[in-house]
């Protein structure tokens, strides 16, 4: 019940400052678009003046794609049906569970790192506005808050990176060995499959719990004015254990919303025909609508968590 109330308040808070969501969405879009021209050029060069272009507009020319894949390098080498549509979501989910989200070509990783830095910076301002409301919503106030909170938030991000890449990555490699050993003597693939799946689910849960801890570390920093990274994380852990049920409630309800929106996107992406310029445009809008909703949900999560902290005092 408490979770639902905080969710409702969080929703209203996000709605009260829609430009924040728009700004975060544009940040995502801008950083992504820096990677677009090289990919566009690679595709255009490969399709050239051949009729494969027509086939790729109307559908997917598998023969052409194999040629492209066999010769492409760098970020262009990531172009594959495996990362399109539903593939993109499943691919990322699997990599997240295996602690391999950062296994990317250099150019993409660089963009991601810069993105995280800027995002870390602006989240200070965003959370301050959610915390303090309209009076801190002026431009100067936003950036001053961001700058003030950046060192702590950067520290929290660094710690999060260590835990995610080090702990999850390490655990995943250890679990791989375990599954391999169990599989080596199995005469059926079923139990190794379920063992591996169980580990993946466990690591996903661990990733989500880590996210919870570091989210609350940021929120409590804003709420309590703390300036110490480890202090903030410790405070977050204490807070979570003291208010476990509402914390988990908010988290998993938001997660359900995220899952729901993802499934909706996968469904619409599958049914909306994208074989004509108009269809392609609709597809692009659908895509951006999906990403926008993910950004909105992220802000909603923060806002709801903040409301919980406000409620518990």
């Amino acid at each position, binding site marked *: 019940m408490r979770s639902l109330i905080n969710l409702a308040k969080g929703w209203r808070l996000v709605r009260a400052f829609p430009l924040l969501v728009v700004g975060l969405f544009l940040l*995502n879009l801008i950083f*992504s*678009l820096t990677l677009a021209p090289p*990919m566009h050029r690679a*595709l255009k060069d490969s*399709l050239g*003046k*051949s*009729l*494969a*272009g027509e086939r*790729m*507009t109307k*559908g997917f020319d*598998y*023969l*052409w794609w*194999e*040629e492209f894949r*066999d010769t492409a390098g760098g970020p262009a080498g*990531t172009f594959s*049906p*495996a*990362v*399109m*549509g*539903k*593939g993109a979501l*499943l*691919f*990322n989910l699997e990599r997240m*569970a295996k602690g391999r*989200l950062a296994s990317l070509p250099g150019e993409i990783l660089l963009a*991601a790192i810069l*993105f*995280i830095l800027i995002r*870390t910076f*602006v989240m200070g301002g965003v959370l301050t506005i959610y915390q303090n409301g309209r009076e801190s919503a002026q431009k100067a106030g936003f950036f001053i808050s961001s700058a003030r909170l950046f060192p702590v938030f950067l520290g929290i*991000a660094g710690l*999060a990176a260590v835990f*995610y890449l080090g702990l999850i990555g390490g655990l995943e490699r250890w679990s791989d060995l375990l599954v391999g050993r169990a*599989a080596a*003597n*199995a*005469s*059926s*693939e079923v139990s*190794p*499959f379920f063992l*591996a799946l169980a580990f993946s689910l466990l690591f996903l849960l661990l990733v989500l719990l*880590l*996210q919870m801890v570091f989210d609350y570390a940021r929120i409590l920093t804003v709420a309590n004015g703390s300036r110490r990274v480890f202090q903030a994380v410790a405070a977050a852990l204490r807070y979570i254990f003291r208010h476990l049920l509402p914390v988990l409630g908010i988290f998993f309800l938001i997660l359900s919303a995220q899952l729901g929106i993802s499934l909706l996107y996968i469904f619409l992406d599958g049914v909306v025909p*994208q074989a004509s310029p108009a269809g*392609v445009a609709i597809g*692009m809008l659908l*895509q951006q609508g999906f*990403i926008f909703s*993910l*950004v909105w949900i*992220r802000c909603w999560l923060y806002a709801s968590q903040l409301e919980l902290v406000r409620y518990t005092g």
Partner: protein
Amino acid sequence: MRKIPFALALLLGFAAAVAAQIRPPRAFCPQVANYTIDAQLDTEKRLIQAQQLLEWTNPSDTPAVELWFHLYWNAFRNNRSTFLMESAQMGRTRTEKFGETDWGRCSVDDIRIPASGDVAETDLKPTLRFRHPDDNNLEDRTVFSVRPPRPVEPGETIQLRISFSAQVPRPVSRTGVIRDSYFIAQWFPKLGVFEGNGWNCHQYHAHSEFFADYGTYDVRLTVPAGYVVGATGEERGSSRNPDGTATHRFVQHSVHDFAWTADPGLLKYQEDYAFLPGRTVHLILLLQPHHRHLRERYLQAVRHAVTYASLWYGEYPYTTITCVDPAFNSGSGGMEYPTFFTGGAYFIAPRGIPRPESVTIHEFGHGYFYGLIGSNEFEFPWMDEGMNSYLDTKIYYTAYGEPVYSQNYFGIPVAFPKITLPIESQGISSHRQTWNMDILQRSSWGYMSGASYGANAYAKGQLMMLTLERVLGEEIFSEMIKAYSTRWWWKHPQPADFFDVVAEFGGRDKSDLLDQFVYSSARLDYAVGGISNQAVRPERGWFEDEFRMGEKADSPRFETEVLIRRLGDVTAPVEILVLFENGRRVRENWDGRYRWKKLRYRSPFRIIQAVVDPDFKYVLDLNRSNNSFTLYPDRVAPLKWTSRWLLWIQHTLELFTMIGG
């Protein structure tokens, strides 16, 4: 009645007796090497002990001074065997974690010529020598020879009684035991092939398969009662023994190998299937319990395979087909033996993804290419793998349509129904990545790498067959391939034999084309270099007695040109399709020999499109995209797919916010 001289009658009678001995009335061919084996499997020690009676008739016109045998399981005896050394060089450390009891071996305990008439029994064991015809690796014991007291004359039959013991290995390659599931292949001392100028009996290599002569196998297998047993041929009865074992007898004539499986957990399904009017075969499926939901998919794949193969390559002659769904980790999946083969399935198997169908059809197909058409898998790997890959692809696509693209996430195959794989895509990618590593025709262990072996033997061979089909046309090709197939059943064809049949049906120039594919690593790549449409310039200057000052020309308005280029080194006659803006289509032919060709037209209309090889005959063309050229390239496609790819990037960035923000 004219009297036949007594000597002639005697000679004729002797010849008939010899013929009867090597070709029993029911057999399809001369039974050169007959094996009668009595084997007992000790599951506690994982040991097979067997007594083998081998009858071999010298099929050549040269006396055989020695007899050469394969002992394939000695490849798993230690890591100095040729097989394991070659595997290690390729980075495959198959036996690194092996304990004392995991290794395999096959030992000849006794080998003798039994007494016959006045001739006393002869012990051949003292003459046993291990041979290394391929690499002089003295540690390799996969080939041995013995020397009978006198040569075996042409047409003469020799009997050998052999006792051997075979330690069943942990699976390394194709055979072994995992838990209590046994798959037993290449397990007995198997004679090589005597070709008159010597024994064709290669060592076991990391990439080689097998070669042997046809004969009758009569095998008794004694295993613990309760084990489900499957093997080559027909089961001719089983009996329970007082010691808790059961003996199963399998018999098959006119085959060149015998494999078997014993596993207490297998589910057994059987049916009589009418694959052609008046022709029935007994189908047996031995299935892993956790794959029981795939039973009908397996059976349907076998039904399709035997039906289409019979239509296209000759009626399947044997009475049984046994398909085994192998145990996980058995290493025995996707492998072929006469009338008996293994498939391969995953318990999550969405429809549209061709597993288990594709591998089942492929392994059944080997019953033709290698089974019936007994080419030498050591020396001409493409003649079974390439041809069979073509066969299995044609059957799959005919029976099921184009398979869909799939990707594994969390070990679960996910289908992408909107992306289908055209038949021309089968193998072209691996060929593209390896085209300049080797020529197609190499001995199986003679390729630069495992990737090159796979790409040449399987992919390039398959693509070559598909190219040949399209170049000859379906009708001529199907006559040709059926003729080749049925002519060479129960024989050992070589590449030249196949080329001869191609030339017979398709003309000598087709053999020339095959020559380029088989004996060179040249790549095939034709391209449209460009299209040019120049407005016809008004006439200026003296024309007869008339001076013209550049008035506008009436018609035609354009001088148009298409440039076709040969970028690869394979030369082949090609067609070009030219499309004008008024919809007119022109087909041209080019012999494809020189490096380029220009097609010129004077036309009121511009050329807007050109395609070289418009019917996609040359599926070996490494770069299909450059085969077409249009003045109006589609600008939407790069935008569309960049945008779709961008979703992944955007989603990735949002996931990164769990780290920062």
